[in-house]
């Protein structure tokens, strides 16, 4: 099934502008990463003819890169937290609400207004810190980071500087099979709490900009990775795994299109064997996993090309923007030395103190995380393809877990979910939480087929009925009289009837045209309304067909 999903998606990149795909992707599909990745995979591997020219040059460069150069990639991710209120004031935050309505003196930075920290921010930071295997600072603090920009009304951002709440962790992930698969572990340097700035809109023509302060003061966690990634795919998968982790934890919706998960990527290259790093370039404006992947691969190719032609000095420390339309990075601003943020401890907020008890409590309440789920599914004997599909979306994983905890066969449950159920959700643009088929009914369905109460074919019909209308398997079987006929006498009667009604075909069969067995089987199945047990039917049919020969 997974492959059906992929096949449908791969058409998009060549029909639409990539930006359009990005926007569509999330709406249409419930599993973002999978689809995004595959879309890239398709571009690179499965449909070379359509992108022949660029593909050719690109693969040549890529070849050179892997032979002579090594890319060093680190990622800074900002995750917007799913709190009801902002970090330091009680203003509610809802994405997309009327501009400048969710504001108060605190988030507007008015004189005399004092911040008070939202306890949920600490809880979520501890959750994510633990999920990323970090060491937590039981005592940490907030600092002011000064910069002047109209989306930051106070003139500084409340952040954490030298003592972040969590440090020194790692994240585990599995690369998709389309990229050769394999397990990766990437280091996490730190996780810290901070507030978001407002939204700045640049009017097209006028000489002014517009500010919406609704987002000012919304809590963020910034996750800084170690420079452990080497390719665009690794970086995109790192981001996708972070998205899975925050969604599993329920600390963020991780939605890249809304900017709830934002990645800034640092890329540098060095000749293989060189120990010091090259000049690093930061890339911004990456709002999908596939753009992370493509922007990085573009940037690596750009830097390698400059370096290999002796223009290494033209790789300068700068911020570049990914242009989705042109599929390239362009200079946004050159950095002249480090910005002087003049950090100092935030005097308006007390120290953040965590007790070991509090941390342990959160640790014990952590849900099963994507990596643990994948390893568990793997141990159950599911294929890696199934494992990655099921664990990709926390809701799908929970659905699957609900079925197997009620005793459903693992492989059969996985097949139904990845097959007909996923196809239905895709067609109807529904998430697994919205379908009317309850996990316990899927269990019942699988059991009814397994026990022979209904045939597989009828099982499928029931499935679609339940998906659309709900109800119970037992109810439907009864209501529609769908119980499989397993009584040999009854089946024999039907076979006799069919044989007597088709003397000509029977003669042909007995004359050697044995292919006609299928015809008879079909006829019997038809008069049984699909309810005859196929194994039994064929057995009895064959006996009767061959009785005189």
């Amino acid at each position, binding site marked *: 099934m997974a492959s059906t999903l992929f096949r449908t998606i791969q058409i998009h990149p060549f029909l639409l502008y990539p930006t359009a795909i990005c926007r569509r992707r999330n709406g249409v599909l419930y599993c973002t990463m999978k689809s995004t990745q595959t879309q890239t995979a398709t571009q690179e591997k499965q449909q070379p003819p359509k992108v022949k020219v660029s593909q050719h040059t690109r693969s040549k460069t890529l070849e050179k890169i892997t032979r002579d150069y090594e890319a060093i990639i680190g990622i800074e991710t900002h995750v917007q937290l799913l709190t009801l209120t902002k970090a330091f004031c009680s203003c509610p935050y809802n994405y997309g609400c009327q501009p400048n309505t969710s504001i108060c003196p605190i988030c507007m930075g008015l004189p005399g207004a004092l911040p008070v*920290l939202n306890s949920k921010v600490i809880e979520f930071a501890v959750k994510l810190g633990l999920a990323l295997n970090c060491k937590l600072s039981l005592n940490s603090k907030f600092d002011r980071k000064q910069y002047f920009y109209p989306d930051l009304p106070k003139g500084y951002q409340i952040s954490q500087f030298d003592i972040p709440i969590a440090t020194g962790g790692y994240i585990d992930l599995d690369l998709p099979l389309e990229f050769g698969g394999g397990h990766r572990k990437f280091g996490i340097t730190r996780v810290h709490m901070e507030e978001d700035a407002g939204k700045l809109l640049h009017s097209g023509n006028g000489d002014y900009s*517009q500010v919406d302060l609704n987002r000012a003061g919304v809590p963020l966690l910034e996750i800084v990775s170690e420079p452990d990634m080497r390719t665009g795919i690794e970086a995109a998968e790192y981001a996708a795994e972070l998205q899975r982790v925050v969604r599993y934890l329920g600390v963020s919706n991780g939605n890249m299109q809304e900017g709830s998960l934002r990645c800034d990527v640092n890329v540098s290259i060095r000749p293989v064997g060189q120990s010091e790093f090259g000049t690093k370039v930061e890339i911004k404006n990456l709002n999908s996993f596939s753009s992370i992947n493509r922007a990085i691969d573009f940037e690596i190719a750009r830097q390698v090309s400059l370096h290999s032609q002796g223009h290494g000095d033209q790789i300068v420390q700068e911020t570049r923007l990914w242009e989705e339309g042109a599929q390239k990075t362009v200079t946004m601003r050159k950095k002249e030395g480090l910005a002087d943020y003049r950090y100092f401890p935030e005097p308006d907020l007390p120290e953040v103190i965590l007790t070991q008890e509090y941390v342990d409590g959160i640790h014990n309440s952590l849900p099963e995380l994507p990596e643990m789920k994948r390893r568990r599914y793997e141990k159950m004997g599911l294929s890696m393809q199934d494992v990655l599909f099921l664990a990709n979306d926390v809701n799908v994983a929970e659905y699957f877990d609900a079925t197997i905890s009620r005793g459903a066969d693992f492989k059969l449950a996985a097949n139904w979910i990845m097959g007909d159920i996923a196809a239905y959700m895709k067609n109807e643009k529904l998430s697994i939480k919205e379908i009317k088929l309850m996990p316990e009914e899927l269990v019942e369905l699988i059991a009814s087929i397994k026990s022979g109460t209904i045939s597989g074919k009828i099982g499928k019909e029931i499935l679609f009925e339940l998906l659309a209308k709900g109800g119970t398997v037992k109810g439907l079987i009864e209501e529609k009289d769908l119980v499989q006929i397993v009584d040999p006498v009854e089946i024999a009667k039907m076979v006799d009837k069919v044989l007597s009604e088709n003397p000509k075909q029977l003669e042909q069969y007995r004359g050697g045209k044995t292919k006609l067995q299928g015809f008879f089987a079909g006829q019997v199945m038809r008069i049984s309304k699909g309810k005859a047990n196929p194994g039994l039917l064929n057995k009895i049919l064959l006996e009767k067909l061959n009785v005189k020969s």
Partner: protein
Amino acid sequence: MGSRALLVLTNFKFKSSSAYSSSKPFYLIKSSPTIRKFSTKTRSSLQPPDVPRLAETARISLAPNEVEEFAPKIRQVIDWFGQLQAVDLDSVEPAIRADTEGDNLREDVPETFENKEALIAYVPSYEEPYIKVPKVLNKE
């Protein structure tokens, strides 16, 4: 205006005397070369403040005569806080914050600020529904 620069300095000075004298590395000092001058432990080595640069980082325009006027005043404040350098901290565990009262946290319960009209009325340039600001494209 000038008081803002002073505020920044006082905060710094305060922390540097209490915490940064330990052997623990504080990146803060490294990234703020200007401020560092005021953070050194020995009082006698305090350099005169670089007022033009302070003004620049605080986005304040000062006339040359104002620079001259402010320099000794800022110096005075620094010296005043500089008295703290005399305290012997060798046997004191560095604190990351001054207060010890512990957490003052808030439940995640939304409350809408009622008098939004007053907030908007304070905005110098407002064009429904946005705050209007001069066009700025680059952050740094």
